[in-house]
């Protein structure tokens, strides 16, 4: 944050963001038994999927667990965050390769069949609807741990 240009710091600190009254807390099995999914806000999606656009009701894209580097592109709208890291290694944004390695090493139980990506800001009612929908999908995938990665 301190390394950011002054104007970006000002814009980011001016963003209020949502607040929540509830404090949910869900525990689960040990890590080596967990099934883990990733969620990114980097606007990643499979090459050929519809790009993210403001004002469209398709809020997220699905990234299958067998997706490989080079099969995704980024259609996030912002110009303010660094993309040069991602352009050399997608794991710096979306660590699916690292997660697979941790599953192979037995650190986690398994990698989910499906992961999810967002690329446009959502209103609170949209957030609530999508969180409910995604949670149902994650449960059907037997996921019991979700890691979230902003950009």
């Amino acid at each position, binding site marked *: *944050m301190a390394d*950011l*240009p*002054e*104007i*970006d710091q000002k814009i*980011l*600190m001016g963003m209020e*963001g*949502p*607040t*929540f009254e509830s*404090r*949910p*807390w*869900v*525990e*689960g099995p*040990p*890590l080596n038994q967990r099934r*883990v999914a990733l*969620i990114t806000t980097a606007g990643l999606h499979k*090459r050929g999927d519809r*790009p993210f656009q403001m004002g469209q009701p398709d809020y997220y894209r699905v990234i299958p667990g067998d997706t*490989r*580097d*080079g099969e995704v*592109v*980024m*259609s996030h709208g912002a*110009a*303010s965050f*660094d*993309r*040069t*890291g*991602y352009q*050399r290694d997608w*794991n*710096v*944004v979306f660590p699916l*390769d690292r*997660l697979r*390695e*941790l599953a192979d090493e037995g*650190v986690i139980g398994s990698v989910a069949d499906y992961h999810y990506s967002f690329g446009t800001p959502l209103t609170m009612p949209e*957030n*609530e609807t999508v*969180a409910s929908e995604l*949670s149902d999908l*994650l*449960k059907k995938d037997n996921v*019991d*741990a*979700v*890691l*979230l*990665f*902003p*950009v």
Partner: protein
Amino acid sequence: MIEEHGISTACISLIRPHSERIKPPRSLWVSFELGRPLGAPNDADFQKKVLITLLQLLERPDGPVILDDYPLDAPESDEDVAVLSCPVRFDNQATDDSDPLKTSFLREIQAMRPWYDIALKKRGRTTLGGSGIDIDLLGEYIYAYVKGAEPDNPLQDVDPSVSLKLAVEDLKGYYVEAVTAQPGQEDLSSKALKEWLWDKTTAGEVLVELIKTCSQSENEKLKMMGTHFIAPMDIMLKRNVIKPGMM
């Protein structure tokens, strides 16, 4: 919000004050730059350490609301901006050239091609392709917008302004993937690459001209795209495309 529905979550925090306000169940604040929640490209060991630290929050009993600080900064490149090779400049070489900026731009794209091809071969993948425009046609497409034209939309069911944005990101990606394939430049910092792209290349010059044209457009979506989503704010201030206080 997913935790409300019965699934444990843990998130990376890039902006600590936001996490302090939102109070997600478990977050790990990292000192890394925006766009790099795992810290460093091509450093699997570093990425894995961050990921394991994040995962370990799931086993902590002391919630709700854990906000930990990751103790390490991302490893930085020692490379200096000065060592970064510049593409060959083709400024105003032909006196009968009616548009030397366009000529220089298209030649520069061609000149980067061998390094892009090496990058593709070496990495076995590219991040380009969001716009659906072939690299050979990318320069012409973007430059048409610089001159105020609106070329055919390469993507169906997508607003032309979004296609333009995706083409711009493909162009930037092309340059970055190419130049980081050159000897000794794989680990260049984002700062060095940003300064190189915007200050040393004709592509940077063209993109600034693109922003100027879009800012005068009567097409509101194009105007919005050009003035907000083509270049970082600090670049637009530096190039006097926007003035302090406008944002």
